[in-house]
């Protein structure tokens, strides 16, 4: 499925306002999304992810740089001449048109014959399982149903790329989970390239083929979910995706050591560094284990299946380890108890600050 780029952003810069007080919403962003890919732009609010999406849709004109669709420069095309469609955050359904009329709108604007408009509309409504509500008005629908109308409306004209601007943020948790798998199914069935914007890292990890993490108008890392999680390029990415312990350390002679001297693991760099370790990559062992780092329990948080154990290391820094919760009868590690701590092989991430 992945052959040739569907959409490309080349050194896109976007400033809002003029002069010295201009806001740099996008700061030299370049990214290539492959055909048929589910690509997610992830970042906190205000990081520029929505601005990038709006540049692709044509609602914003980049201050500099180019947008390519299927290899063709569309930077100066108005939105209505770009074969991309958007699922808006607020859905933006036309309140005076029925569900079917909303879905048919794009096809009508493209001047498709009546019979084709009808057939495609029916097919799309069936695809999102809304055939029964075709003649309702949007305000008579629930949030989840409106969401599906918005999807069907954007998919109906068979765009080269479908842009989704935080489409699930207005839904409650249960519905959101449902819609996540629904979206995956739709993408699979239609084969259309999806560019998805979200600030929810879990959503990004579960749904995407690749994720682009953004912060302050810059694209920090583009990689598949596993690499983003396990090989974050910097502290921001490591911190934003999942939970992480950051430890100050020293690398010397192929070994990473805590400031207090205990060996954490091997490395190829040297100097003062920061290492990141995910909580679930830390294992408990006996206090006497001489290959483990001695630590002291400070407290624990019960999370259900797992528990977070708060520990203090010899150099005074604090870490969290995620361990399976013990059966209720068994006493857990009590505050003040000494334990040994092992780092899972390959779990150590050396970060550039």
């Amino acid at each position, binding site marked *: 499925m992945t052959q040739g780029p569907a959409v490309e952003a080349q050194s896109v810069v976007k400033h809002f306002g003029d002069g010295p007080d201009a806001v740099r919403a996008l700061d030299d962003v370049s990214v290539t999304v492959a055909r048929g890919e589910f690509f997610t732009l992830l970042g906190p609010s205000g990081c520029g992810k929505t601005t990038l999406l709006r540049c692709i849709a044509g*609602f914003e004109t980049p201050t500099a740089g180019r947008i390519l669709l299927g290899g063709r420069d569309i930077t100066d095309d108005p939105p209505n001449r770009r074969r991309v469609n958007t699922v808006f955050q607020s859905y933006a359904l036309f309140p005076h048109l029925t569900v079917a009329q909303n879905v048919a709108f794009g096809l009508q604007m493209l001047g498709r014959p009546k019979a084709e408009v009808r057939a495609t509309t029916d097919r799309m409504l069936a695809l999102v399982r809304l055939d029964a509500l075709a003649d309702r008005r949007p305000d008579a629908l629930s949030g989840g149903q409106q969401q599906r109308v918005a999807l069907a409306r954007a998919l109906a004209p068979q765009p080269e790329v479908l842009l989704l601007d935080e489409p699930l943020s207005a839904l409650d948790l249960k519905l959101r989970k449902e819609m996540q798998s629904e979206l995956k199914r739709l993408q699979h069935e239609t084969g259309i390239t999806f560019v998805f914007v979200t600030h929810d890292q879990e959503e990004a990890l579960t749904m995407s083929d690749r994720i682009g993490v953004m912060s302050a108008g810059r694209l920090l890392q583009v990689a598949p979910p596993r690499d983003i999680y396990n090989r974050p390029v910097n502290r921001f990415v490591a911190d934003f995706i999942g939970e992480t312990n950051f430890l100050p350390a020293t690398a010397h002679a192929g070994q990473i050591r805590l400031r207090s001297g205990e060996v954490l693991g091997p490395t190829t760099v040297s100097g003062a560094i920061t290492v990141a370790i995910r909580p679930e990559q830390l294992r408990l062992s006996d206090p006497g284990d001489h290959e483990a780092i001695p630590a002291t329990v400070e407290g624990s948080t019960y999370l259900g299946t797992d528990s977070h154990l708060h520990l203090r290391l010899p150099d005074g820094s604090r870490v969290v380890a995620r361990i399976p919760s013990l059966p209720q009868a068994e006493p857990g590690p009590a505050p003040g108890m000494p334990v040994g701590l092992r780092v899972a092989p390959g779990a150590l991430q050396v970060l550039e600050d």
Partner: protein
Amino acid sequence: MTEIRVAAPATPARAPAAPRRRPFSAASLPGFTAVALLSFAALYLPILTLVVFSFNASPSMSDWGGFSLHWYRDAWENDAVQEATVRSLVLATLAATIATAVATLAALGTTRQGHFRGRTAIYAFINQPLMVPEIVTAVALLIVFGVVRAATGYQGLGYLVLAHSAFCVPFAYLPIRARLEGLDRRLELAAADLYATPLQAFRRITLPLLAPGIVAGFMLAFVISLDDVVITEFVKSAGQDTLATYMLGQFRRTLTPEVNAISTVLLAFTLVLLAGVFLVTRKRA
């Protein structure tokens, strides 16, 4: 139902001699309700009296002589009234149409184009007829149209149409602008995203959603034109009475309930239009 009946006997037992308590309300102020109801009575009593006496059989406006519709018949058969009515309706239709058309364009210009230099000035200029006393505008138009009359010899309805269209503009503009400001701009983006050209987006999305505002604006402009006395009195050419100026003329003579009858019909007409505005603007915001 049964539950209430079962519970009922318990109440007096629990509070044997307690006087009925008025619930505490932080928002109630002493005497306010009485004054308010008095105001409503004062507003409606004169109008109701006027309506009732339009059905009076006797020509008196204070003694009731039985029910009759003959003042309505008199008004209907009065050539001057007929002529003035037709003129009023024609004038109001023309003025409201022109005012609504230009007000719609202006509302689009002042709400859809972002904040630009001069927007506040345009806004103030459009609302200018609301600020200048009518008598001043009336005098100004009397002078200017007098000059135009002398120069061209034209005596037609054009002067009234121009004057009425002008002072109706703000009344048409305000509801249209309000509607436009309440309209979600993302709908137009969505239309563009779905391949609609700007013109198609306007015709298929903006205009249908704007329609209630335009209808409300038209109806308000219509009512305002129909009601105008001062400017019409100064601008009209000889023999160009509207219903309002005809009535003003009648006050100089001995009044008969015929004026009540005309007023009642006009009142009913205004009410219907207002109810229309009310219903149209309440529908799907």
